């Protein structure tokens, strides 16, 4: 029944190689519905991993299983090398920040934060000191005697954070903690959480469906889809080198060209597509004759008006299209083009370039992109059909 965090922290260093949290083959099934379908994950001490995915992709369920609020149908979870599967939530010693804060409405802020310490039978004097510390940590000194309903959303969020951190759990789970805040406050809190992560060296699993949030804070992002981790990696890796159409479409925006691999050229491969022959980076296990889809970010496409200023290298891929629509976005402009074969393509151009070109609906333009900026992706049998319809023509 000893719930003091100290044995964990000493073991920490020893178990460094293994990682603080190890998840193996996690599954959760409600009747015929599979919510989590074989999740594996290893979290290093001090790492910030974000679970990103649409609602119903299994990310929150996975989080709740880690916290012990739901039981897994199969699989194992180890915290600091110790199996925690049989432990009820109150013996797991994991901090959780809930979606709508879940502050106890009948207790003052100080009592809320003191709660986990009281549960661990920490002496009263130390509780008082640590509550003060925790309040200072989140910038809420002097708010201890207020009640949750007297605080703004952002302040309640900070209290929830302080409450989850005050007992120094080896692992902190956060379930869409900023979902209820407005955009400005959300950005401010993102920086705050990043700061706390750096200062405390906490290991954090963060759940969100907001890709920007994921990019801002995470060391690594795990993209969830249909109860599985589609891809896990650093933000840049996921953005620049997505391994599936889902990841390329969910994290940022992408143009997709379906086709078939014609030839392999080292890192690159040549693809036959209805839009014409394309050259793209080979991402994954592609052989000649395989179906593939090429993903290109709208900002990687450039419009070649006459004498292209693309000095950094000639784009290997060139296509022609007609401007359908121009959307003014302040920093940039978005063009909706229609290619000769009828496919629609989105191009994003910096404001200055856009002003120079002065394109409007009906104009015929040439567009091009570097092969290194295009990813030829593996197409899973079956799943590509459904995804193709969502994003495609």
């Amino acid at each position, binding site marked *: 029944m000893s719930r003091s965090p100290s044995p964990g922290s000493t073991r920490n260093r020893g178990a460094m190689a293994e990682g603080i949290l190890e998840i193996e083959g996690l599954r959760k099934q409600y009747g015929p519905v599979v919510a989590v379908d074989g999740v594996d994950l290893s979290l290093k001490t001090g790492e910030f991993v974000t679970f990103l995915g649409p609602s119903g992709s299994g990310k929150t369920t996975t989080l709740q299983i880690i916290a012990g609020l739901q039981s897994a149908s199969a699989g194992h979870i180890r915290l600091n090398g110790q199996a925690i599967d049989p432990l*009820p939530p109150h013996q797991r010693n994991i*901090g959780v920040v809930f979606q709508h804060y*879940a502050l*106890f*409405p009948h207790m003052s802020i100080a009592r809320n934060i003191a709660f986990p310490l009281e549960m661990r039978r920490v002496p009263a004097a130390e509780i008082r000191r640590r509550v003060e510390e925790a309040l200072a940590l989140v910038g809420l000194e002097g708010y201890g005697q207020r009640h949750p309903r007297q605080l703004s959303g952002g302040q309640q969020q900070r209290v929830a954070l302080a409450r989850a951190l005050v*007992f120094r759990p080896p692992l902190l789970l956060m379930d869409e903690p900023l979902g209820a805040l407005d955009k400005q406050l959300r950005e401010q809190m993102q920086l705050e959480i990043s700061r706390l992560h750096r200062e405390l060296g906490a290991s954090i699993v963060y759940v969100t469906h907001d890709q920007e949030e994921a990019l801002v804070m995470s060391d690594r992002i795990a993209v969830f889809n249909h109860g599985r981790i589609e891809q896990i990696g650093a933000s840049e890796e996921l953005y620049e080198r997505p391994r599936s159409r889902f990841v390329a479409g969910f994290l940022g925006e992408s143009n997709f060209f379906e086709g078939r691999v014609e030839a392999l050229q080292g890192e690159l491969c040549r693809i036959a597509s209805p839009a014409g022959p394309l050259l793209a980076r080979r991402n994954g296990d592609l052989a000649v004759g395989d179906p593939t889809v090429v993903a290109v970010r709208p900002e990687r496409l450039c419009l070649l008006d006459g004498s292209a200023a693309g000095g950094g290298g000639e784009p290997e891929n060139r296509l022609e299209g007609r401007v359908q629509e121009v959307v003014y976005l302040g920093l940039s402009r978005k063009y909706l083009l229609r290619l000769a074969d009828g496919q629609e393509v989105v191009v994003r151009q910096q404001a200055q370039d856009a002003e120079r070109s002065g394109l409007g609906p009906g104009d015929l333009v040439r567009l091009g992109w570097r092969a290194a900026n295009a990813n030829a992706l593996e197409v899973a049998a079956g799943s590509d059909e459904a995804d193709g319809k969502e994003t495609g023509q």
Partner: protein
Amino acid sequence: MTGGEELSAAGRGAVWWHRLRALICVLVGLYLVAPLVIVLIISFSSAPFLSFPPPGLSLQWYDNLFGNPVWLRSLITSIEILVPTSILATLLGTAAAYGLARSRLPAAAAIQGFLMAPVVVPVIITAAGIFGFFRHIGLNGTLPGLILAHTVLTVPYVVATVGAALSVVDARLEDAARTLGASPLVCFRRITLPLILPAVLSGLLFAMVTSFDELIVSLFISTPRVRPVTVQMWSNIRGDVDPTIAAIATLLFGFSLLALLADHLARRRSAGGAR
């Protein structure tokens, strides 16, 4: 011009409608409350019969009431029934409501319906059934029998009141408490119970009032030896009526008012504390 006239006509209509509604509300309010007030006044009457307005005030009918061992005995019997009944009903009802709210029982709706059944089934049927059953097992005219029967009738109110409160309490608060290190029992005591306490008290009060006021089942299963005050009142009402009945009625009414007031206070405290 015509437009303005139309508008003012509509405005006049609205004012009339408003006044009519106010008048209706006053009349209905009187209809609801006045009878009780009249009984209250008559109970202090100095006249030897039920007349209104009373010629003068006196406490003779209360003297009569408390001086009469039959009335006193029945009052005590009623209290002997209502105290265990309300405690039992509150414990059973709260436990059941919590179980229904927090477990994922497949037949939760059916169980909830079953627990509410004593309110839906006409009391006369319940009373006749219990009477027949108790005759067989010898519980007729006993205190335990009356307590059990009254508990059956009051449990649904506790289940409904506490259940409603639980449906408002965010289940994530309990999840949060669990992740912060609270065992299920501690979690209930420190988080859930304080949040639903007003409803539990409200259920307790309502169970008390319901038991105190219960007549029909008691009528069947009580005997002259164990006879709650409502049954005593019933047998007197049908004979010759004197203002002693008004005094006992006033006592019952006062008890209800006190309970209502306590309930109001409990709810107000919760409204101040929880939101």
